[in-house]
């Protein structure tokens, strides 16, 4: 038995050594550095760094209105992606049922995820352009031209335009994840339920959903992490404008660091978002447990 233990130890060391070292150098060390910087006043360029304690944290809560505006936008993304989850799930159920041509639909639905995000953002910037834009043209053709709006520049609308692009890009990915989740349910179980007279909704609730917990978990995690760190689409399409109307937390953090040379503050914000992601994730994990206790 000792032999095996020794062998096991050696195997563990050999297999884990490099990945863990890489992780320490390129992830853990920079993260610690980030936390350190959050206690400094530093313009990111100068060699002078001044220790200011928790001043940055205080400023973040008391004197950064645009940061909270940006965070509200992240919230909007999260809400809409959450609303999409049941819809994505229904589409997955539909595509999992007997239907001609579902292969084609599945192939197409995953397509947006595969294409370059930079390319998509450029494409949609022109799609919604006020002059010669395709979307306004569609409205024209359908005689809906009274609905034409300033899609990318009206502060009340711009976020929804960007959210549409975000949903366009990521929903198909979720649908495919759900489909594979549905597939993993054992067919015998479903058949038995069908014989017992359960209709498709009942089958979904009683058998398919519970066994999809892991996929659901992954999709939720992806939504939370993705929407809180959302960046690329507004970065290319609007640069957060007009004003800060379509800014997001990450975008504002980047502005703080680079436009206003406040790297200490930017690090503080980065730490904040890290804590937020973890908290939401932990709360999300706790809810089912609490429900069970009852």
């Amino acid at each position, binding site marked *: 038995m000792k032999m095996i233990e020794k062998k096991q130890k050696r195997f563990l060391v050999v297999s884990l050594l490099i990945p863990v070292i890489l992780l320490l150098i390129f992830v853990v060390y920079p993260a610690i550095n980030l936390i350190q910087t959050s206690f400094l006043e530093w313009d990111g360029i100068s060699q002078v760094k001044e220790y200011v304690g928790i001043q940055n944290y205080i400023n973040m809560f008391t004197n950064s209105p645009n940061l909270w505006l940006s965070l509200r936008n992240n919230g909007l993304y999260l809400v809409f992606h959450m609303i999409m989850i049941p819809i994505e799930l229904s589409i997955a159920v539909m595509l999992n049922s007997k239907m001609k041509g579902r292969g084609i*639909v599945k192939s197409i639905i995953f397509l947006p995820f*595969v294409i370059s995000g930079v*390319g998509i953002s450029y494409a949609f910037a022109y799609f919604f352009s006020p002059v010669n834009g395709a979307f306004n043209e*569609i409205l024209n053709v359908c005689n809906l031209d009274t609905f034409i709006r300033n899609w990318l520049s009206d502060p009340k609308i711009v976020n929804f335009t960007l959210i549409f692009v975000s949903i366009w890009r990521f929903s198909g990915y979720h649908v495919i994840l759900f489909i594979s989740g549905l597939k993993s349910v054992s067919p015998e179980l479903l058949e038995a339920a069908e014989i017992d007279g359960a209709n498709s909704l009942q089958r979904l609730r009683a058998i398919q959903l519970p066994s999809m917990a*892991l996929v659901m978990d*992954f999709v939720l995690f992806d939504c939370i992490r993705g929407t809180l760190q959302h960046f690329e689409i507004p970065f290319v399409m609007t640069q957060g404008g007009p004003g800060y109307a379509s800014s997001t937390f990450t975008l504002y953090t980047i502005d703080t660091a680079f436009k206003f040379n406040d790297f200490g503050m930017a690090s503080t914000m*980065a730490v904040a978002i890290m804590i937020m992601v973890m908290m939401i994730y932990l709360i999300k994990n706790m809810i089912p447990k609490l429900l069970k206790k009852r």
Partner: protein
Amino acid sequence: MKKVFMQGLKYVISILIILVIIGPLLVVLFTSFKTKEHMVTVSPLLLPDFSEITLENYRDVFSSKYLLSAFKNTAFIVLVSLFFNIIFGSITAYALERFHFKLKRIIVALFFLGMMIPTFVMEISRFKVIGSLGLYNTLGAPIIIYIASDLMQLYIYRQFIKGIPIELDESALLDGCGYYRIFSKIIFPLLAPATATLVIIKSVNIINDMYIPYLYMPSTRLKTLSTFLMSYASAQQGSWQILAAAIVVVMIPTLSIYIFFQKYIFEGVSAGAVKS
């Protein structure tokens, strides 16, 4: 009657979905065949007359001298990072899933932390590390970052290994196999669907990532497809038809990977996450 209605509804929904997804892409494709004049005279939703279709925009893109090196650089980065991602990812997942040891909780927590950290601002501190290792402005920089920090492969592999009965390991161990042999001869082959999934998702992510190559490889010789597209877009000064052609060209690699591996995606993008 109800059944027919349901079937009909399904098709209506499917067609709607397809229109919403394909529509914007078709606009890009149509635009890429237009001349500057067409941009004003032809509706953005239509192709110009067949006889007037131009390939000039594509000629323009392909004549850009950095396109080829962008392809090469991207391919190299993807191949090397994928190779190590798969090796390290699968073996780490195996070690963490099958064995119990003192530091396990800490290591798992560290890997989890790695998924939480917002990348963009952290690059400031990571930059110093890359710089002091002399990796700055080399292909090594993005490669090592992709290997070290993007950890979704762990998630996928761990879930998948959970689904492999442990008796398999045990009987092999009794037969006198070493752990390396068990891993490489028994476990790894069984992970093939997860590996295929990884190949798709990771290569798509890496090819489409613009921030890391943009930050760490400013040299024009070291452009990747994404950074190529960015600098190409700014050099076009509003010639949307040329930019559209560039977008189409840059789409080609991920699109071909997708078509080639499509079968596996549907067998289990999240097969790993699902089989428990």
